[in-house]
């Protein structure tokens, strides 16, 4: 009876909250947990309870997985807005449950925050858990990858089927002593891979004998193909591996099946291959998966491309404080075979907190901006002088760098002093200002 009341309360509060204009995805769960903190233990969950977590790529993976499942006839509920706190997950589950306490879908699919996961798994166990990667990400909030690893490791219950990206040695470590089935995925060498001696590697040492890992190649950061010199710990051949990767043509093969990519970014290879592995783990066959991945109605990433000064201008969001995501966006820009001008900058390191840590700009390989196809690099925002220093350390030709401290001058500077396709990679607030500049140009 009490369960009935708690579920009803949650549904009711969320409805009211929505009616008065709020998102309504969190507050109901908050009150439900106040009434009964063990309510989630009392819900009959569906056969498949799937979690997806990691430092990056979890939203894209969850969305693609939702498509694969629903188009194969599995009714699925998932946290669409990525709300992944315990209150949000409670709301999600109770809103979709009968008053008798049964979640009436085939699959519960959840994008999960690495740090909050443990609070959710206290109440129920996922049948499947996919982990995309563990990297430097918002250090003021997450401190460092080793801590994220420990939080994920501690939260994983016995018996859960893990789907792991083994190109990441941190993720691969989760296999050690896991009591339950494991499916692995990874991607083969491609034209984004490189062999290099870089200094800022995480998980650089073997977790078993502490020898330094040796790499055959890197995809980015510590993600790549590695082995311990004594072979205690290796990136073995994954169960599902993307091969014949052509990012520009958006084509890969997974275990001999041709697969189309939703966009020409390297990270899409990862989330598509990850979802492939996860789909196989829950019993879908190759055809069921490729039918969805290769269908025309699969949502491709909408590129933000605008017209300005009779030129094209593509906007990318600056992934501040995640050096590897930031670097992948830079890689993408440099990889485009056109003469270009790049605009970089930010006012604050984070949207989530007020502390400004600029350490992360030293973990990004800006040296790669020494590229003849780059006409100019424009630096904007409150930290433009720090970025200028970073560019100077990267030995970028002084004549190519323009500092624009007053954003009101930007439009003029772009028109008069730069050439080529425009790529901007800025924080969210700056992006709004840039869009105004583009709109202003149209009105002239």
């Amino acid at each position, binding site marked *: 009876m009490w369960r009935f009341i708690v579920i009803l309360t949650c549904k009711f509060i969320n409805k009211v909250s929505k009616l008065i204009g709020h998102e309504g995805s969190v507050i109901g769960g908050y009150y439900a947990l106040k009434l009964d903190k063990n309510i989630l233990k009392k819900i009959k969950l569906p056969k498949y309870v799937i979690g997806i977590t990691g430092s990056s790529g979890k939203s894209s993976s969850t969305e693609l997985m939702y498509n694969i499942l629903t188009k194969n006839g599995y009714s699925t509920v998932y946290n669409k807005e990525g709300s992944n706190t315990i209150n949000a997950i409670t709301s999600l589950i109770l809103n979709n449950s009968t008053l008798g306490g049964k979640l009436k879908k085939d699959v519960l699919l959840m994008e999960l925050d690495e740090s909050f996961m443990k609070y959710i798994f206290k109440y129920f166990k996922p049948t499947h858990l996919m982990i995309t990667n563990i990297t430097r990400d918002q250090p003021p909030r997450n401190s460092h990858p080793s801590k994220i690893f420990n939080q994920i490791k501690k939260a994983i219950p016995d018996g859960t089927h893990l789907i792991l990206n083994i190109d990441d040695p941190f993720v691969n470590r989760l296999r050690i002593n896991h009591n339950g089935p494991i499916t692995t995925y990874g991607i083969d060498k491609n034209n984004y891979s490189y062999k290099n001696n870089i*200094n*800022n590697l995480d998980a650089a040492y073997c977790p078993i004998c502490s020898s330094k890992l040796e790499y055959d190649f890197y995809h980015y950061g510590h993600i790549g193909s590695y082995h311990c010199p004594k072979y205690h710990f290796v990136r073995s051949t994954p169960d599902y591996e993307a091969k014949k990767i052509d990012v520009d043509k958006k084509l890969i093969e997974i275990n001999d099946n041709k697969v189309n990519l939703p966009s020409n970014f390297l990270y899409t290879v990862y989330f598509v291959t990850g979802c492939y592995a996860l789909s196989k783990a829950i019993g879908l066959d190759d055809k069921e998966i490729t039918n969805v991945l290769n269908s025309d109605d699969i949502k491709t990433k909408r590129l933000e491309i605008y017209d300005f000064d009779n030129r094209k201008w593509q906007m990318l969001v600056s992934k501040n404080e995640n050096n590897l995501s930031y670097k992948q966006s830079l890689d993408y820009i440099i990889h485009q075979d056109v003469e270009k001008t790049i605009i970089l900058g930010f006012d604050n390191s984070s949207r989530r907190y007020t502390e400004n840590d600029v350490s992360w700009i030293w973990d990004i390989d800006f040296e790669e901006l020494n590229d003849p196809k780059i006409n100019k690099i424009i630096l904007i925002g*409150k930290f433009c002088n720090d970025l200028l220093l970073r560019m100077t350390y990267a030995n970028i030709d002084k004549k190519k760098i323009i500092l624009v401290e007053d954003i009101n001058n930007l439009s003029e500077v772009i028109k008069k002093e730069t050439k080529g396709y425009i790529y901007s990679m800025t924080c969210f607030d700056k992006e709004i200002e840039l869009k105004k500049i583009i709109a202003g140009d149209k009105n002239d």
Partner: protein
Amino acid sequence: MINVLHLYYDLLNLYGENANTRCIERCLKLNKIKVNVDYKSVGDKIDFKKYDLIYIGSGSEEDLLLALNDIKFRYDGIKEFIDSDKYLILTGNAMDLFGEYIEADEKIEALGLFKYQTKFISESTFENASTDRIVGEVRATTKLISEEIIGFQNRCDLNLNVKTPLFKTDNKFSNDLKSDNEGFTYKNVYATHIIGPILVRNPYLTDYILDKLCKDKKLDYKVSDELSIKAYNKYLENFQK
């Protein structure tokens, strides 16, 4: 010629710390002084006599202990290095390696070169369980220079009984969270909990240390990095609270 060693470059290099040896290299080159930077880590053969300056950055708690296992075998070389007035710069939790012990889940003996002790804090240290680390923008002062120090901390270590701090700061960023003492200094050892590119961001401090080092070596150090000074001033202007 000045010889610099970035020790544990692949292990204690968590927050863009590679910037610091790059900064030393750049500033010396601006002054037309020849400089060589070596990168060494666990298990590497190191001749400490070769170096004028050693830098060590911050790492995860796990990696710090990995470095500790290695540095214990280098006690004699490092002691002689410090005793002969050579330069040691430590950022983040690197200073923990040099105290008497580190108290994590268990008490682990450290190098014991300096008479302070380290304690890792955990979620139970704070009332609010979501903050189990000391994180934030730091301002500090020092007797070495008149200009203020700027930087960032992200740490979970407390250092107890430090008698000779490098900086003075707000007690929420101090060594023990009680006094206003931050970091540690002795002879030419400069240690702080500030992480990341501290030398790039604090050109006046960098000039002080490098000028002193150059005087020891009878070299002329006169030119400052103007770009670095401008970024420093802009930060103070934009984020003056």
